[in-house]
């Protein structure tokens, strides 16, 4: 019987982290920005059916990059957790912080367990509050650490570069159109410094809109509305319910 090679814990963890990071880097990036009326999620995602951004509960949404089957199972787990908790107690007892902690524990346990391979995912959990100051955004890398973010966040392959591009230009009081155009401009930047063209059908966009009258604040921004928001000239003032006002603003500008 052969003696196993000794591998130091530092080395083992570094190897696992590198493995996970490489997996995540293969995926396209995703950005989340606060804007005046909520939080907007923009992902590069050519698929119509396999989502990177999803609703978890009334004010809480989930976004992820990396390996689809892994973050999909975490998404469904989170939905089950939120629904069970809301059913057991009350809808207001479901919080992004609780969910983020649970994800952190889950990812951390998987990362440190030597029998399982680490998940190649990076998650974002966001909750829209009554005011911008009460918005919460948590970023969860593959190792189960948890980072409380504000303003703008990028995750995925090219996230460092995109993140710094965003942080220089982002303001909390942007309207939805402005925030969306900034997000798309940031995603279009190549790691080499060049820019790519991103068409609307390559984008997955969703918002947590605090002005939405329904209890559930999550809403996908789809074709016509997305085109309208992206086409809007810089400095436009689309406010309130994005679906109507944004459409009207864009229709006005076409004439």
């Amino acid at each position, binding site marked *: 019987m052969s003696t196993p090679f000794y591998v130091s814990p530092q080395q083992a963890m570094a190897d696992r982290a590198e493995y996970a990071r490489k997996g995540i880097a293969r995926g396209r990036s995703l950005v989340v920005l606060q804007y005046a009326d909520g939080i907007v999620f923009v992902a590069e995602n050519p698929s119509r*059916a396999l*989502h990177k951004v*999803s*609703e*978890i509960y009334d004010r809480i949404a989930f976004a992820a990059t990396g390996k689809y089957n892994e973050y999909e*199972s*975490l998404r*469904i*787990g*989170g*939905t*089950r*957790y939120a*629904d*069970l*908790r*809301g*059913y*057991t107690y009350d809808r207001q007892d479901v919080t992004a912080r*609780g969910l983020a*902690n*649970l*994800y952190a*524990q*889950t990812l*951390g*346990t*998987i990362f440190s367990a030597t029998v399982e391979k680490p998940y190649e995912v990076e998650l974002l959990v966001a909750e829209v509050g009554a005011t911008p100051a009460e918005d919460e955004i948590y970023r969860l890398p593959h190792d189960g650490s948890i980072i409380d973010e504000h303003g703008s966040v990028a995750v995925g392959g090219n996230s460092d570069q995109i993140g710094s591009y965003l942080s220089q230009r982002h303001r909390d009081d942007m309207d939805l159109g402005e925030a969306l155009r900034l997000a798309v401009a940031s995603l279009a930047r190549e790691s080499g410094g060049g820019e790519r063209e991103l068409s609307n059908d390559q984008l997955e966009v969703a918002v947590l809109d605090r002005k939405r009258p*329904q209890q*559930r604040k999550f809403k996908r921004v789809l074709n016509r509305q997305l085109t309208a928001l992206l086409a809007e000239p810089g400095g436009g003032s689309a406010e309130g319910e994005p679906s109507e006002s944004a459409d009207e603003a864009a229709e006005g500008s076409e004439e």
Partner: protein
Amino acid sequence: MAANSHDHGRLPAAFLRPGSSSFMDFLTEHAPERLPNNRGLPPVEGPLEAVHGTTIVAASFAGGVVLAGDRRATMGNVIATKDMEKVFPADEFSAVGIAGTAGIAVELVKLFQLELEHFEKVEGEVLSLEGKANRLAAMIRGNLGMAMQGLAVVPLFAGYDLDRDRGRIFSYDVAGGRTEEQGFASVGSGSVFARGSLKKLHRADLTEEQIVTVVVQALYDAADDDSATGGPDLVRRIYPIVMVITEDGIRRLTQEEISEVARAVHEGRLQLPNGPQAPIV
């Protein structure tokens, strides 16, 4: 309380396991004791004293469907609540009204709402109206054991079918038997009187405003002859709950809107106590 003990740990394996998009299925597997149907009841003699909700009516019109309910809840011959809510939105395009044991009914509605929402979130699309109606049938069927002990729940389900572009109404029996109703339907102790009223007043070509008046008239007639159904309470400003469901989604009439209709109906009754008269032929 299996779920609570995991709140500070990682997600339990059951949460991450691939499986059904149904919240009820998940609950059955993970925490069966939380299901309202899964409670063992000791054998009881005679009817159990519990709060009961009474009359619910539904009627379709050209643009959709309305669902409405009175506000009275009774326990034996005592009025337990004067402002109970028995009509609830199930999701964006459907509503459910419940007659029967209030405690169980409200819990079933909560679970039904969650079931629809959970499916929508997990699958990324909404259930068909037919699918929603069937899910509700399964839940009522699950309650049969308690119904046999006197804790019956009988819902009325109405929604806008986006595939067929029209409102539809489904009624149920205690065993979960599901029937699609044409035009109008009612459940609860005052339902026979409400149905007679709807039969005389309902027409397929009525507008939204007219159909709202029709269901309020029907509830007024039910309250007239059934002691467990409450009429509009003009003194306390408690009026029926009315949900209107069209292709734009569900909308609960505001207090101002419904008070206007209820007062108009009441004014009419001061002249004609039996309500509007239908032509003889």
